[in-house]
């Protein structure tokens, strides 16, 4: 069966790779926002050097990692969840549940393919743009980059886990717009997209760093910046893996409940 889901991953990749001009347009948007946010961070770090333990080049690197991760982690939507919710609302989900493929694994595979393309298509170019315009603190050790890739992959699974739960809420709510919107707000705020979580004041920062959303940006960025070394890096990856397993298990439970007791809407 590994070959089957592998094929779904490939198709997920190719599906998003089809829209080249949309990808180029997305890169422009990421770069423009990266530029604007970078200047606001420079003004902030100018006043408070070493804020949150970051030097200015590290803070700027954080900005561009954030822009690179925006599409990969589907922080502002654009993942599979709208499609799945549509299928739940229209009743097409009944057909999906009868297929000889597991619903969660199917969508996870498709989303991994999407994320892999977004990493190449929407992640690399803004990073290069940022590195050309600003003095960034990028690591030279290949091992750090490898750890970063593992951390990104784990972050994508956490992101999927959360979005799968949101999508399944459509079994009960039918209209998932509200749930999607709440999830997006929480994601933007608690992932560290607005400001690094170690800049959040006091208790709010501590809570935010323990929540699953931090696995989507804060942890991968800190891994790339070399703030987790040796066993610290393993602990960071274990934190992500823990949330990934927990969320996937919760999704599986919810999928079971939904399939058993919810009457599918006729179309």
């Amino acid at each position, binding site marked *: 069966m590994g070959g089957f889901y592998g094929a779904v991953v490939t198709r997920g990749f190719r599906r998003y790779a089809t*829209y080249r*001009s*949309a990808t180029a*347009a*997305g890169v*422009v*948007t990421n770069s*423009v*926002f990266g*530029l*604007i*946010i970078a*200047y*606001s961070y*420079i*003004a*902030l770090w100018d*006043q*408070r050097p070493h*804020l949150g333990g970051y030097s200015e080049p590290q803070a700027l690197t954080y900005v561009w990692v954030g822009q690179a991760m925006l599409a990969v982690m589907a922080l502002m939507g654009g993942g599979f969840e709208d499609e799945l919710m549509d299928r739940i609302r229209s009743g097409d989900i009944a057909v999906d549940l009868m297929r000889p493929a597991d619903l969660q694994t199917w969508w996870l595979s498709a989303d991994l393919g999407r994320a892999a393309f977004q990493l190449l298509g929407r992640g690399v170019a803004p990073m290069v743009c940022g590195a050309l315009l600003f003095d960034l603190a990028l690591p030279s050790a290949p091992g750090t980059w490898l750890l970063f890739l593992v951390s990104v992959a784990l972050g994508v699974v956490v992101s999927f886990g959360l979005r799968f739960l949101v999508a399944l809420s459509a079994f009960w709510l039918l*209209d998932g*717009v*509200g749930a999607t*919107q*709440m999830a*997006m*707000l929480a994601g*933007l*705020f608690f992932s560290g997209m*607005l*400001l690094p979580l170690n*800049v*959040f*004041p006091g208790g709010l920062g501590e809570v935010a760093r323990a929540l699953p959303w931090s696995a989507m940006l804060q942890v991968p960025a800190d891994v790339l910046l070399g703030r987790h070394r040796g066993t610290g890096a393993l602990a960071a990856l274990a934190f992500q893996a823990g949330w990934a397993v927990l969320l996937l298990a919760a999704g599986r439970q919810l999928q079971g409940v939904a399939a058993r007791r919810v009457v599918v809407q006729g179309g």
Partner: protein
Amino acid sequence: MAELTPGEVAAALPAAAGRPEHQEPRWQPAEAMRAYALIVRMWVRSTMAYRTSFVLTALGNLAATGLDFLTIVLMFAHIHALGGFTLPEVALLYGATSTSFGIADLTLGSMDRLGRRVRDGTLDVLLLRPAPVLAQVAADRFALRRLGRITQGVLVLGWALLRVDVRWSPVNVALVPVMLVSGAVIFGAVYVAGAAFQFLAQDAAEVQSSVTYGGNTMLQYPPGIFARDLVRGVTFVVPLAFVNWLPALHVLGRPDPLGLPGWLDFASPAVALLCCLPAAAAWRAGLRAYRSTGS
């Protein structure tokens, strides 16, 4: 039929198009406004059929757009001034651009759907209706929930006006509403020009967002923190600096980083009107060059 452009189809149907054959569409502002109001009223009624959903999405819009301000507030947890501006001063910049952008977003924000209509061919339907296409596209799927952004902008602006340390001379008082209206018109011109560009590049909606949403984000911060070339770009190329920076700097009694002549602080209404000319020309050129996908 296949080799006819929709423009030719419309011209061949004078009764339906409501104008004589082979004649350039005349500029009919009253007619356009009437059509716009009619379509908007229809979408508002449709929205109000699901009242709870409307309230929730409007609140969501308010919260989502408020995240930007939350970022600024979190920054000020660590500092007293950003680029030399206090929190109420940054809030004045923020509130002004958010309100202006909110008005443009509410009235013309649906125009970024034009690319999709070109791609799937549904624009042809709009060409056949006896109403100006621009009014139809602008009112298409009018999203009342965007009131959330305006509300949020007005709240921040109101707070800023109460807290900011300014001598309220008659000129400064008058400059605030002038700034809001001119800003809305400038952003509106960007929306129309962006929509015209989508006739050429149907997937370019996101490039347009980088100017509109990105511009709005940039204007929320003091101009002094950005590179001079970037500030020159949004002053002379896409004149977004006239949305809030120049008039607000005058109100706050601060010099602008480019050292521009003082009278430019009052030039926003003129710049706004000037922006409409290239936007209108681009729209007409785009519409004339449009060829249907045929599907």
